[in-house]
Every structure is written in C-alpha cells, then in structure tokens.
C-alpha cells in the first residue's frame, strides 16, 4: 500500500509547490524576488564551481598571494571617475638579453620592462618573483645568480634598488601553500644552506647543470629585514632607515624637502626625527632585473648560453588601485572574497532555515496531532526557549567553540548554526500545532479514520500538504535571519575563519580608524548582505500573500 501512496503523495506536494510558485510569480514583488533569487543562486553556483575548494588557505589567507597585491586600495575602475592613480602592473618577463664577460668569468642576463606613472600618486612597491631558477652545480658546490633590480627614472637617475637578498622557497606548490619552508640566501655564491645542498646532490646530473623546476625565487623589497640597526646619529642614516621602511616613495618620488628636528638633551643637541616631503615623479620608469653568475668554470660557460637564469620572472609594481573591488588592509582581493561569500551565505541561510522548518514542522504536527504529554512537553520547551535571550547564549557558545576549536573553522561555524536551529524552531512549531489542531477536527479526517486510515496516512496525506505552504513561507522568511546573525557575530569578533561577508565587514570594522575612507571595503559586503536578505524578505512577503489570502490588498 505504501508503494502506491508514495508517488501520488509526491505528485500532490509538487503540484502544491508549483501552484505556490505560479501565484508568487504573478505578483510584482514575487517576480522581482524570484528573479533576484535566480541571480543569487546562479552566482553562488558559479562561485562554488569555479573557486578552489581550499580557497581559504590557498588564496584568501595566503600571505604569498596577499603580498602580491597592494594593501587598502580602491578598485581599478575608480580611475574612470577621475581618481588619480598609480597603475597596478603585473608583467611576466621571459625575453632577455645576455652578456658574456669571458675575462672575468661573468655571465649576465637582463630582463627589462617599463612602467608608466601618469599621475602624482606613489605605487606601493615592487616585487619580482623568478620561476625555475638555474643553479649550476660544480663538484659539490653550487653557483646561483646574484640578482638585482635596477631602475632608471624619468629624471635620468639610475639606481640600484635591490641587491639580492634572494629568498629561496623550497616547496613545490609554493604559490598556493602557507607552510612552505623558506631558506634565505644572502649571497647565493657563498652560502649553501642544507636544504639547497641536499636538493643539488639529489638532482645534479653529470653535466653539472641543474634546473630547479617549479621553484620560485623572489626578490622583494618593500620591507626591510631589520638591517639598519646602527645607532641613530645623522640625517643620512635616518634617511636610510626611512628608505628601508618605505622604499617606494624614494624609488618613485623626489625629495622636495628634508626636515630634521633636534632636541637639547643632557647638555647637547641630538637629532630626534627626520621627516621628508616627497613628490611622486611622473614619467616612464625602466626596470631591469639583472642576474649575474660569477666564477663559472669555462667548461660550463659555453653551455649556459642557451639557457635562462629564470624561465620567467613575474614583476609586480603594486599600484594604488587594484582589481574589480579593491583590496583590504592585508592586500586580499576583495572581489574574490565577496564572490566566495555568495555560496557561503546561501548555504548558511538554507541550512539553518531548512532544518529549522523541518524540526518546527515535525514538532508542531506531533504536538498537535498526538496531544497529551508529548504536546505538553513540547509546548513547555518552546515556552522556555522563547524567553531565553538568544544572542548572549549564542555568543557564549560561539566563544567557547572558538577557544576550543581554533584550528577547526567548520566546527565553530556549524556550532553557531546548530544553536540557531535549536532556538529557531519554536515559533513555527506553535503555528503548525494550531493548524494541525484545527485540521484534525475536520469531518473528512474523521471519515478517513472511520475508513481505517492509519495515523501516518492521515498526517502525510491530509495534514502535511495543507501545512506545507506555510512551511515554505516560513523557510524563506528565516533565511535572512541566519545570514544576518552570522554576520553580526563576525562583527563582534567571533571568527570561525571562513571569508563570509560578515567576516570581511568585521575586518573592515577593526580597521575602521585606519581605513576611514575605505568605503570600497565597508560598503559592498553590507550591500550584498542586504540584497540577499531583501530577496528572501520580498519572496517571503509574496509567498505569505499566496498562503494567507487575507493579506492581499490590491
């Protein structure tokens, strides 16, 4: 008997849902919200399919990736509305010129590019990352290139702005990994760190030439490594110190004024502070990356000619604008985070709303249909839950989870969602119970019972199909609640680790005093949260009119 009932039961359910959907579509708000909903789901699906599954670790929280972007800059399109900018440039250099100096046994390769600065805005820095380094193994020692970045400026000054503190990263999936081992080579010819040495022994072939595939070397000079620890004494050394901290303004700017402030301490004047006024220098910059091998054995010199020190070099000039949505204070690409937020928000919303509605439905029907002690217990539980201040309890539990499972973001997030579900089903259960009570008294239920229908049949065939429209409306209405609560908790500093819109906003909020003008950081996540919530609110209102015709006004 059960087998015969099932298809028709499903068909009835599907038909009732189709009716609801049709009725909803016929309304203005219903149409708008359904269209918005389809758009949301399409974007969410697209993001879920396209973005890497380990997006959080691989991209969002990856310091390597963050380091390639300028930090706290507006979107690129702001330049079209007249905001002066320094362009963000990423160039892959693979063409090179080479120069052989046989007498001194020096082989030099040069990669060259140009960067144009049109407005008086400073770029944030320069990074060069080399891929597939050529290391020459001679006997049991290795020779690597010494790399430098030379920049010739529009005013004719050519300066050496980075002399290799080459960073060797010994991890194959470097660009997407957090925990790569980094070995520093300050002078690659002389220092042979263990790791490099071992690799050389492992891979070196008879000819003595070795190419380390998939390895990235990079020269980065937007931070100093604390080398300027000499006692502060004169203006020059202070300038050096300042240069180490903010090299970009010296590379791309002219000093228009230097102020040194002195103070009379213990009977003598001593230098306290040096401030410089810099003016960005507009024009075309020639950037050359030179890689030089020295002391190569003559036998190898002839063979190296056909090779490159790096297969390619990624040269990044960090501009003052970036991407479609700008970046946050750590240099994360906000466009990616916001896109990733779509599937997260939709999943959080539907997970909580779906389970809340399901539990509310079951509890309400059971409570109303069976009555007695079960009813009493469920009603009392709902009563007490309704009186508990939810947010504090939620914060307490979330904090406990955050402290306990700091390394397991999924557990923290799920914990929060489960508390939301546990406290959310009560209101629906009361409505469903009231409906069940009134349906139960209808004559056709009595007739069905007289014909020998089981409780199960009455519940599934007569009660649930009538309750379903309300459940659907309630489900849609409770989606935004979950999204908003999760976002609110994030703003309070409860971090589960996933880049939800709320989490992005909470970062923006923490930096508010620093990032006062960063509207591109504060606005979009809030707007997306609002639009998503609005979609469900409007859909809920339209559905409500369908299931509760008395609300119809026009």
């Amino acid at each position, binding site marked *: 008997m059960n087998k015969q009932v099932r298809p028709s039961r499903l068909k009835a359910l599907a038909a009732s849902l189709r009716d609801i959907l049709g009725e909803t579509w016929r309304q203005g*708000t219903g149409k708008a919200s359904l269209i918005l909903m389809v758009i949301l789901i399409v974007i969410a699906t697209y993001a879920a399919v396209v973005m890497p599954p380990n997006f959080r670790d691989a991209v969002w929280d990856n310091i390597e990736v963050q380091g390639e972007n300028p930090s706290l800059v507006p979107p690129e399109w702001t330049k079209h509305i007249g905001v002066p900018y320094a362009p963000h440039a990423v160039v892959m250099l693979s063409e090179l010129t080479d120069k052989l100096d046989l007498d001194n046994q020096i082989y030099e390769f040069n990669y060259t590019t140009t960067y144009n600065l049109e407005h008086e805005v400073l770029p944030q820095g320069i990074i060069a990352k080399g891929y597939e380094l050529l290391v020459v193994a001679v006997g049991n020692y290795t020779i690597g290139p010494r790399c430098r970045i030379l920049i010739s400026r529009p005013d004719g000054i050519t300066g050496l702005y980075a002399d290799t503190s080459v960073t060797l990263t010994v991890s194959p999936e470097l660009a997407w990994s957090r925990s790569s081992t980094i070995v520093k080579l300050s002078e690659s010819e002389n220092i042979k760190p263990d790791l490099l040495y071992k690799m050389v022994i492992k891979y070196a072939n008879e000819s003595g030439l070795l190419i380390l595939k998939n390895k990235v070397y990079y020269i980065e000079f937007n931070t100093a490594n604390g080398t300027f620890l000499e006692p502060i004494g004169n203006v020059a050394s202070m300038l050096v110190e300042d240069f180490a901290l903010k090299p970009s303004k010296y590379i791309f700017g002219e000093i228009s004024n230097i102020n040194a402030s002195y103070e009379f301490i213990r009977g003598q004047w001593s230098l306290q502070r040096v401030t410089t006024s810099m003016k960005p220098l507009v024009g075309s910059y020639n950037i050359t990356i030179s890689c030089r091998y020295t002391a190569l054995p003559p036998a190898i010199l002839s063979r190296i000619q056909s090779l490159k020190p790096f297969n390619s070099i990624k040269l990044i000039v960090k501009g003052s604008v970036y991407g479609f949505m700008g970046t946050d204070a750590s240099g994360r690409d906000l466009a990616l985070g916001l896109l990733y937020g779509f599937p997260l928000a939709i999943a959080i919303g539907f997970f909580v709303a779906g389970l809340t509605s399901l539990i509310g439905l079951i509890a309400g029907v059971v409570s109303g249909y069976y009555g007695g002690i079960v009813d009493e217990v469920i009603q009392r539980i709902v*009563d*007490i839950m309704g*009186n*508990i*201040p939810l*947010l*504090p*309890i939620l*914060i*307490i*539990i979330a*904090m*406990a989870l955050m*402290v*306990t499972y700091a390394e397991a973001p999924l557990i923290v997030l799920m914990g929060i969602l489960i508390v939301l579900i546990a406290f959310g089903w009560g209101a629906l259960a009361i409505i469903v119970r009231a409906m069940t009570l009134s349906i139960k008294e209808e004559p056709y239920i009595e007739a069905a019972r007289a014909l020998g229908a089981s409780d199960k049949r009455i519940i599934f065939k007569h009660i649930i199909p009538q309750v379903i429209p309300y459940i659907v409306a309630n489900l849609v209405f409770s989606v*935004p609640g979950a999204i*908003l609560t999760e*976002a*609110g908790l994030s*703003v*309070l*500093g409860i971090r589960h680790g996933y880049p939800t819109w709320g989490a992005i*906003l909470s970062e*923006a*909020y923490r930096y*508010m005093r620093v990032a*006062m*003008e960063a*509207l591109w950081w*504060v*606005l979009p996540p*809030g707007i997306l*949260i*609002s*639009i*998503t*919530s*609005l979609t*469900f*609110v*409007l859909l809920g*209102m339209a559905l409500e009119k369908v299931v509760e015709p*008395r609300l119809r*006004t*026009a």
Partner: protein
Amino acid sequence: MVGVASVLARRALMLAVAVIVIVLLTALILEATGYSTRVLKAIVDSYVKAYRQDISRTIRNETMVNELTEKYKLELEEIYGLNKPWYVRASTFVKNTLLMDFGITDREDIASIVGKAPPLRVSDVIATVIPRTVIMITVAEIICIAIALAIAPRLVYKIGSIADRAVVAYAAFTNALPIWWLAMLFILMFSYQLRVFPTDYRYIIAFIRDLSIDPITNFAQIIYYAALPIITVVIALLGGWLYGIRAQLIRVIREDFVFVAKAKGLPDPTITKKYIVRVAAPPIMTSIILALAGSIGGYIITESVFEWPGMGTLYYLAISGGEASIVMALTYVFTLIYVIARFILEALYIVLDPRIRIT
C-alpha cells in the same frame, strides 16, 4: 475573582519556573562547555606571568621565584574558583544569582565603561549602565512607536496607495538591513568624513555623571552624543513598527462592525478612532510593552559598533572577558524585566477581557 487570582497565580508560577530554568541553563552553558574555565585560566596565566616578571626584578633566587609564583597562582585559582569542579561553581552561581547577590568585579575594561576604578559591585555596574542604554535604545524605540502610531492609522484607508506601498517597501528594506552595518556606515560617513557627529562615544559617561552639576551644558552634550545612535536605530526599526501596526489595523478594518459603521455614514476619522484603533489597541499595546522591556537589555552588536557604554557593550565585555558573574547577572536582570512585563500584560488581559479567563 477567585478564578482570576488562580489563573494569575498559575501564570506567575510558570514564568517563575521559566526564569529559574533560564538561569540554570545559562550557568550550565557557561560552566559545562568549559568556556569560563578556559577564559579564567588564560586570565590567571597572564597575571601569574606578570607577577613572575615583577618579582624576578627584585628576587634573584630562582627557586624562591618559583615558589612565590606557585603560591600566587594557587591564590588566584582560589579567588577565581578554578580549584573547584564546574558543577560546584555553577550551583554557587545559580544560588547567588537567584538571591540577587551578583558579587564584585575587578576587571579594568568593565570598570572603564562604568567610569570608576575597580573593584565595583556588579549590581552597581548594571545600575549605572542601564540609563545609558535607555538613552540610546529605549528612546529610539519610543520615537519609532510615536511616529508609527501617528502614521499607520492614516494609511488604513489608503491600502495600496503610493504612500502605503512606500511604507511596505521601506519596511522590507530595513528588515533586510543589519542595524550594525548602518551604524558602521553612518559613523564612517557622518563622524569621520563629514565630522558632524562624535567618533568616540565613551565621553557620554562623563556627561551623564555630571548632569546634576551643570544640567544645561551636559544635557546638550548628551543629545549631541546620542543623536547619531538614536537616528540609526530609528531608521532601522521604524519600518518594522509601521508595518506591524499597519497589519494589526488592517486585520480590524475587515471586520463586519467597521463595515456597518461605514454603512451608517460615520466619518472616517471617527471610525478610525472608535472602531479600529480601539479594537486593535491590545495587541499593539502588547508589542509596545514587550519592545520597551526588551530595549533595556540593549543591542549587543549595535552598541559595540558605537562603543556605546551601555548594557549591550557590558554584556559583550563580560562574555569576552569570561566574567561569568556579570553574564549571569545581566541574563537574570534582562529575563526578569521581560518576564515581569509579560506578567503585567497577561494580568491586564485577564482583567480587561473576560473571555480569556475561560482558557
């Protein structure tokens, strides 16, 4: 009258049981999850570390330093109750909270939002903080209610008109808008960029404290500081109030007696006043009283965004600082206010509406 008394007594008993269960549950959640143990341990460890550094400067003997540190640690564990099992701590909490004995706090951050030096009695802390939340949240709620009560009755005859649709759209829009985001946006725009409103709202502590010394200046300052938070909350909540009251009135306007009144040719204002608002008054009154009672608990997130030194911020500081006694006290006070409001409402219903007595 005996019937009324017994019904009321039963309701009172139910609500009292609910309060006790909520206090029990809160204590259970705080202690059984290990939350307060963890937070307290971290605090004790930081104190012990500081103490060790402190005495290391004067005492060179390693073993003596170790001994003293250990002794200090045991003392602290005694003070924070870490040497007792969680259920002992939880039951002490429940007992003390129900007896309104909330204890003493010596937290710097909590004392700083009160505006006094620690140690402070928790009951005093709550008593100083409640008026601030009333100034921000309760005042905003009252403004919302007043505006909604003024506008909504004018809408009932114009259901479907542009004004009515605008109200519904506004309600839907603000329903989807997180208040705390609006707060962030307004602070960013009006406080930081346009510099119309203050950026640091904690100064309000001093103005409220000195209100009796120089009422006029300080009152003006309080208004200046409270303006943006109140505007934010009003904008965010007004839509909900308008929609809610409108819905209650619409429910009544479809009743037969309104139809009859109309047929009799009574003027619209009279119908609204005597036939609609009057009938819809009890449910509207319910939501107003419950909202006002609820507003005293503060808005945790919005207050935190404004750094408004009210109940919400205190709640948050207490939770994040593992100050379980304050969490318990606040939960208790909040629930008590809410439950008393509910009881008053039910008593009013029973007295005013004889039909309810039967059920």
